[in-house]
């Protein structure tokens, strides 16, 4: 007497999903041969899986949105992304598996303070080439940077506080031009003023950032974002930031 195999509903789904071992697959296949109506039902379930893959598999090949890559590689407390990163959501990166080589990593979600602190550290230690165009060509320097930034800028006068303009340079900032002015006092202490197009509505209060002994005050007006950086006590730097702000507003 042949033993009738028991096939449960669970077995049938496991058959569809390839979750049975070889013996189980054979057992169900044999049983289905004798129950064509059920075989037809399973065919419909397989078709559902096929339709899901047909409809959604293309998403696997899509480039990964840049905000998601940033969430992994450059997480910030609070998770807020600057408006530039939202605009750049149209620019996406291919998920090639390696975190190295993400050209935008770090650059697109930094505040101006982080960028300015970085630029300050890189350039103030330069002896031979701290600037690209010297203060002896200030008019040309200002005209050049105004042209590149697309709006008139000035190098503020800080002589009252003992700082003289050394000169300035052009820097890339998220693919757009930014300006860096460098000042020096008699003791050789250096300040940098970083300026980029990033205006908001009205003017913000001074915000403070620091990286060890290097400190920065930053703010925006309708046209630009500014960051004044130096290795000074905070109160002194704030006074200088005020001076910069008043001088630029004249």
């Amino acid at each position, binding site marked *: 007497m042949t033993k009738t195999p028991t096939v449960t*509903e669970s077995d049938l*789904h496991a058959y569809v*999903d390839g*979750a049975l071992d070889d013996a189980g697959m054979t057992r169900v296949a044999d049983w289905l041969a004798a129950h064509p109506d059920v075989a037809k039902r399973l065919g419909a379930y397989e078709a*559902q899986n096929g339709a899901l893959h047909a409809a959604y598999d293309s998403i696997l090949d899509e480039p990964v949105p840049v905000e998601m890559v940033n969430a992994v590689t450059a997480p910030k407390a609070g998770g807020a992304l600057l408006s530039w990163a939202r605009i750049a959501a149209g620019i996406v990166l291919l998920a090639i598996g390696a975190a190295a080589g993400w050209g935008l990593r770090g650059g697109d979600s930094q505040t101006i303070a982080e960028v300015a602190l970085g630029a300050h550290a890189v350039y103030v230690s330069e002896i031979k080439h701290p600037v690209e165009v010297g203060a002896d060509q200030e008019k040309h320097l200002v005209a050049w940077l105004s042209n590149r930034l697309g709006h008139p800028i000035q190098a503020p006068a800080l002589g009252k506080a003992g700082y003289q303009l050394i000169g300035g340079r052009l820097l890339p900032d998220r693919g757009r031009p930014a300006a860096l002015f460098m000042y020096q006092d008699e003791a050789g202490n250096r300040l940098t003023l970083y300026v980029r197009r990033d205006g908001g509505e009205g003017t913000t209060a001074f915000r403070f950032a620091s990286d060890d002994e290097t400190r920065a005050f930053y703010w925006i007006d309708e046209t630009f974002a500014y960051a004044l950086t130096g290795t000074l006590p905070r109160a002194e730097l704030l006074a200088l930031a005020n001076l910069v702000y008043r001088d630029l507003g004249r």
Partner: protein
Amino acid sequence: MPDRNSQIIEQIPHLRRYAIALLRDKAAADDLVQDCLARALGRFHLWRPKSSLRAWLFTMLHNLYVNRLRDQARTAETLRHGIDPETHPSPANQEARLALGDLSAALARLSHEQRSTILLVGLEGLTYAEVAAITGVPVGTVMSRLARGRETLRRLMETGETTETPSLRSIK
């Protein structure tokens, strides 16, 4: 050995595919995945390196999804009575729907438990044990949701009506 960032980034396309199929709204889905990634980064020290990273991330995504449904249901209840999140699709899904025809519309008619189960098994290819862990229920419940969901889909796509589904009994 691939670093942490690469391992997680590799899973993003899978998380997106599941979330988009589940929510049928690409913006809401990407939003959910974004939240999941932020949470995963904060809790990465809790992941046991020998366990499946994909299952861990999917569990996190599933929990965030269920929390959102509960929040939406709570809001909806204050506006009108009788919304049972277990049997009615979330109102948010009605907008920005990807045009995928009958299957997509039929999926939306399922409870979110049945829909997630079908997608995790049929689209993501996760094992029944993994799906049980992700959705926080016994494997028997996974099988029950799978069976009922698939049969409802079949009936809806054939005739446009839902009928009784076969129970999990042994079939002779």
